[in-house]
């Protein structure tokens, strides 16, 4: 026996085409704050989802309080006193806080002595007490739709406490909070630890770890890199480990040969639907034959930058392509002017999953000849065009151009989008997270194509969360942090550590 409350030994979890966790072993002591650090897609959430019973590991064992457990469902995890606050809250909007907290385990009472009913009054009191004890003040009678995001998070925490959870998992808890709210949350987390709870904190924000965590496991591409004592380790060391020091494969890259200016963005501002400024006064140029790569942690305005250039969202400031102002143009006008766009979300944005491959490969040209004459579509043209791209770009599909795209693998879906966008022969190509979720072979394939487009004299805007991808492809690197372009520099003049520091906002020019 030992004093570890949670032990995960040699955990491996595979998803089609990707190893999410590769032989990961961690041990967590009772009463500590244990952080799990890693980039997007490093396998943090997958690892914790297995502890919470949402997935079962392919290999490896989980021990809770020294006893081997097979956690087959979140309900079973709850029985083991494991609770999780998800990144996206799971609350019923038009129920009160109390109703949400007791949902699924309502305390029964007898109304008028015989009618079964839910004892809301008694629980209201109980929850008010509970919230006071942990400093999580809420009004139990308020409805979820009436309260703010940070209060909703408190409700999620109270939900775990009400169920007497001992092991609390927080999945990126600060992603939705303001700096003040983050301070407050971290205080709560400390408070919970002091009252004997074990906390697991999934995050990619170093400062938070430095502030509250006792120990920290670093995951990089599914593998456990190191487990560190937070007090004695610097943030820089952690950042380096998280990004991964060694780069496994180098893509062959020829000398850049810049031509004329293709894209020019100046003073670009974007506000999201809530009116919050997400891109702030961003300016840069991209020349023909140049890969301009934007690095940054997810949610710092990069996706909005790409959408604004493609015309999918409103922006202010000026955008010009080949010397012509395009800021007032529609998406189609911009695309005809010469913008190709490989969006981040290939299934939600880049493809119509219920359409055939052939129809998807013509998604931006369907209205032109030979696909369409006088408003009538020519299905043969779709099939011929589709087959051509399938052969040229090695897109694997069950029934050729007639395959429903939904049935294809993620890698082949991405190949289809890239093929479609490349053959439109645009002056500017925007790639957002082009290799997300793909396996090594597919990644290399996409990288080769990006480079060959550059060598053909295209201007390329590459937005990626993978620092390694940025370093190996970029001619020029720009780093975004909280909507601002922190720096723009030639690729050779920055080390990956320096880029990482700009990404974390811990370094300024």
């Amino acid at each position, binding site marked *: 026996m030992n004093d570890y409350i949670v032990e995960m030994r040699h955990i491996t979890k595979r998803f089609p085409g990707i190893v999410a966790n590769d032989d990961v072993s961690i041990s967590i002591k009772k009463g500590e704050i244990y952080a799990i650090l890693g980039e997007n897609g490093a396998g943090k959430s997958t690892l914790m989802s297995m502890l919470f019973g949402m997935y079962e590991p392919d290999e490896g064992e989980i021990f809770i309080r020294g006893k081997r457990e097979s956690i087959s469902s979140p309900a079973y995890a709850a029985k083991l006193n494991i609770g999780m606050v998800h990144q996206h809250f799971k609350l019923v909007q038009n129920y009160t806080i109390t109703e949400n907290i007791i949902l699924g385990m309502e305390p029964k009472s007898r109304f008028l002595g015989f009618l079964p009913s839910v004892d809301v009054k008694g629980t209201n009191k109980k929850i008010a007490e509970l919230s006071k004890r942990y400093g999580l003040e809420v009004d139990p009678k308020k409805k979820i739709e009436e309260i703010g995001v940070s209060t909703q998070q408190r409700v999620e925490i109270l939900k775990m406490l009400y169920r007497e959870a001992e092991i609390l998992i927080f999945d990126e808890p600060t992603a939705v909070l303001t700096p003040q709210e983050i301070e407050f949350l971290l205080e709560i987390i400390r408070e919970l630890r002091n009252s004997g709870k074990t906390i697991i904190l999934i995050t990619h924000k170093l400062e938070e770890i430095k502030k509250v965590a006792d120990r920290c496991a670093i995951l990089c591409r599914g593998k456990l890199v190191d487990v560190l004592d937070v007090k004695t380790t610097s943030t820089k060391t952690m950042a380096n480990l998280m990004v991964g020091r060694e780069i496994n494969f180098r893509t062959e890259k020829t000398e850049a040969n810049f031509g004329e200016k293709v894209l020019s963005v100046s003073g670009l501002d974007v506000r999201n639907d809530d009116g919050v400024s997400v891109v702030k006064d961003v300016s840069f140029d991209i020349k023909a034959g140049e890969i301009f790569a934007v690095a940054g942690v997810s949610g710092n305005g990069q996706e909005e930058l790409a959408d604004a250039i493609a015309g999918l969202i409103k922006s202010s400031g000026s955008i010009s392509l080949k010397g012509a102002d395009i800021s007032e143009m529609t*998406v*189609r006008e911009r695309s005809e002017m010469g913008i190709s766009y490989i*969006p981040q979300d290939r299934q939600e944005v880049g*493809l*119509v999953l219920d*359409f055939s491959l052939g129809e998807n490969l013509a998604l931006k040209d369907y*209205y032109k000849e030979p696909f369409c004459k006088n408003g009538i*579509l020519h299905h043969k043209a779709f099939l011929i065009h589709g087959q051509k791209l399938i052969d040229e770009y090695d897109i694997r599909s069950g029934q050729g151009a007639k395959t429903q795209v939904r049935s294809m693998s993620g890698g082949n879906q991405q190949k289809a989008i890239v093929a479609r966008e490349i053959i439109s022969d645009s002056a500017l190509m925007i790639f957002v997270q082009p290799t997300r979720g793909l396996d090594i072979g597919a990644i290399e394939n996409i990288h080769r194509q990006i480079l060959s487009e550059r060598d053909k004299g295209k201007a390329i805007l590459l937005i990626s969360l993978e620092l390694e991808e940025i370093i190996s492809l970029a001619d020029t690197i720009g780093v975004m942090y909280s909507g601002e372009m922190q720096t723009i520099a030639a690729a050779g003049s920055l080390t990956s550590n320096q880029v990482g520091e700009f990404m974390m906002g811990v370094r300024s020019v």
Partner: protein
Amino acid sequence: MKKPKNALKNPFRRGFIAILGNEKYQGFTIPLFAIILSLLAASLLLLSLGKNPLIAFRSLLQGSGLLPKASYAAKKNILTDFMSMLNILTPMIFAALAVAVALKAGLFNIGISGQMLVPGFIASITVGYSKLPAAAALPLVLIIGIMGGAAVGSLIGWLKHRFNINEVVSSIMLNYIFSYIISYFINTNYIDAVSRQSRYISANTRLTLANIELFGLKMDIPLGFILAVPAAFLVKFLMDKTRVGYELKVVGLNKKAAQYAGINVGKNIVMAMAISGALAGLAGVTYYLGNFNSIQPRVLSSLGFDSIAVCLLGNSHPIGILFSSLLITVISKGSNYMSSTINVPQEISQLITGLILLFSACGAYIKHRVSLAKDEIRDEKLRLKQENEEGDRV
């Protein structure tokens, strides 16, 4: 723990899943299965009333002119019954097609009744009460039907596009608004003192040739039916083979992708509702100026609501809709005769129609259960195979 199921043991179930599980034919087999289920349920109902369900179903077919009756009144035979069934089938086809077009663009057009009523009323008071000859009046009635319905439909589409008002809410509300406004005008200007409906339109302007003497018979000939069947093929062509259809489908399946592909989402929402409304308008004029020849104030046609279920029963497919419209019309038309032959109230036949519509709405659920059962059988086979292999090793 789930009880381990032995999915392979039951050959009946396996055969069943094999038939329904073939995805290629599911568009056809699942509605058929739903209909069989509903007929079984209806049989139980009839048996519990002490009636023979077979006689009941036969009299439904007889009443709608698909099987000969035992005896006919003077100048009536199976053909006259069949024609009068076609007379009400015509607006049903148009209305169900209207639902289908909107559905393809991801819109739920529940306001068919309103989109029928408006052009029906306008055509009645302009052309219907005029002295125009048939050759001029009939095309005019059709044009008013198309334009009037399209106008109401695009208003709903525009409200959604411009103000983000859910089409279900706006179309229901507009149903009432139009119904009351039109009732006001009928009651004040066009009322027939005896029937308490709007005055009858002139026979020249009616899309159904009523009481025509032909082959020694007296029958109604619905001219609109000549257009209804081609309309279904036209809708199919529109959706499958034209740029407009391609854009509507992209908008219906994935709005974000539509926007990304440079498709004007708002324009297509208005367009889809305009086409849907135009078809509903045709349903309206073939209903109010065809099947009937006057408008009852303050009544929204139930056909406009039934058409939603008819569309779903036909899997929202234009050709499927031809068949589902036929089925529902046969039952509702034949119900009169059924209630007299087996001596049940007419409500019973409405109940049967209701059962069919209810079961047809379960199509997605049946599909879901079938695919679950398919997975179960596959897993079970895999498990048995693995066990056998292990057994071999031992």
